[in-house]
């Protein structure tokens, strides 16, 4: 070991090795507890099964579902993807809070944005572990594959992941600002936007005064876009571009909230004290 090498490494404005170190930490945590890994699979699979049986029932009792059997199953899986991407980020963040580890981390050369990148990467891993097995299980159980959507699915996935990250960053900023008393935000905030995202019903069902709020959410474009693919067989690129533009706005907002809260925590000395 040479001090010069350590200095040079520490002064580098960005280091994939530091991002990997943080990602490794979260993977060690995940590996250290199999109940937590099972929990990642549990809820998406349970949701998929409930909505799968519901869809089977409605296929014979509802012309809406009869036209496109997977409309509810696809919706629930995409919603879960959004929820898990936000929760995946927030949970890794909360691991540091529960461990009271921020004081240790931020006297190393780790940059806050490198930490954020590792949180995003961990969110992708958690979503993959949680949602993909449920999607695969739906194929033998209900003869429905969400992957049949093809390329539009990738577009939906990108929009929802980005929206989940934006929300997750804003929530983490809120927890940094208000302490562990606000940790419940990680599980609850996203459900406030569920009715407006129009997951299972078209936007036109909403009162007209509420519809502009719904159209301000990227998720609404995804669920409307999914129904367009399933019912009309075409992909609405206008929805995609609008959703991506909104994602950029929300990501900028979420990132700003997070970094302001982080700087404020440093100013208040909360990084050393924060935890359970």
């Amino acid at each position: 070991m040479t001090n010069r090498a350590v200095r040079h490494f520490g002064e580098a404005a960005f280091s994939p090795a530091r991002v990997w170190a943080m990602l490794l930490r979260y993977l060690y945590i995940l590996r250290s507890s199999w109940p937590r890994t099972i929990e990642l699979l549990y809820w998406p699979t349970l949701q998929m099964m409930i909505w799968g049986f519901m869809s089977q029932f409605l296929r014979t009792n509802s012309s809406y579902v009869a036209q496109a059997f997977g409309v509810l199953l696809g919706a629930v899986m995409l919603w879960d993807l959004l929820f898990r991407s936000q929760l995946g980020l927030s949970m890794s963040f909360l691991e540091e809070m529960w461990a009271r580890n921020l004081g240790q981390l931020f006297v190393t050369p780790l940059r806050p944005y490198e930490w954020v990148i590792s949180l995003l990467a961990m969110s992708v891993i958690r979503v993959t572990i949680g949602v993909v097995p449920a999607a695969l299980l739906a194929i033998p159980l209900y003869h429905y594959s969400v992957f049949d959507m093809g390329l539009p699915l990738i577009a939906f996935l990108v929009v929802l992941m980005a929206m989940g990250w934006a929300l997750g960053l804003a929530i983490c900023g809120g927890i940094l600002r208000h302490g562990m008393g606000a940790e419940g935000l990680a599980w609850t905030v996203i459900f406030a936007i569920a009715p407006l995202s129009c997951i299972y019903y078209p936007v036109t069902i909403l009162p007209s005064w509420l519809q502009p709020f719904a159209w301000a959410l990227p998720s609404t474009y995804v669920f409307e876009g999914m129904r367009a693919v399933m019912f009309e067989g075409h992909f609405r690129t206008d929805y995609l571009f609008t959703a991506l533009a909104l994602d950029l706005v929300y990501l900028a907002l979420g990132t700003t909230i997070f970094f302001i809260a982080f700087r404020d925590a440093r100013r208040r000395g909360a990084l050393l004290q924060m935890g359970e």
Partner: protein
Amino acid sequence: MPEPVIRVENLVKRYGSTVAVDGIGFTVESGVTAALLGGNGAGKTTTLSILLGLLLPRTVHVFGEDVLRHRYRVLPRINFSSPYVDLPHRLTVRQNLSIYARLYGIQGRTERIALLAHDLQIEPLLDRPSGKLSSGQKTRVALAKALLNEPELLLLDEPTASLDPDTGDWVRGYLEDYRERTGATILLASHNMAEVERLCSEVMMMKEGKIVDRGSPGELIDRYGRTNLEEVFLHIARDKRAVLEPVA
């Protein structure tokens, strides 16, 4: 004349209406072991946190660098240990040390961890979860983490708190060896007067956010006409005046 390793001028930190650090100033030269002494709430930990860049007050200088503007030039060269900031409990000691070694970009980290584990006698603990260690074991592991990057400046908050006398003595001996071997500068905050007398050549006595006296342990003992540093500490702590005249 070389730049001191630590240079602090008129440092103030307020938490709302409470003044935690009230205009202190001091320097610590290279290779010196210095101590911040004071009762609870005197401002010792706040001062250490500011030096580490964990708090954002006015600027302080470490290695001649403004910590606010160039903290990433400073952080690779320093490290800290505190019994009040544990390593994450669910990871093993080896996993924790490995992650911190990666964060510092240490080449040959496996060998470095093995060497420190040998030196600090924590080899049997490496594959145990950090949360399942005793206080003494945690302190030695925290010291191993603090020495991963072989810091030129080591900041220690209560380095031997909650250790039995034997382990405490062993840790103090290790720190003396480390300073002699590497020429590192050490700044510690402590309540243990015997520890400070043994390790430190400079002592800054803090009270209510101010440095109220300073000098070598011997100078302070002579100045107050006492027989040891603990009596000096008690004299200052029990002085009825709200705060003694700060030392310039």
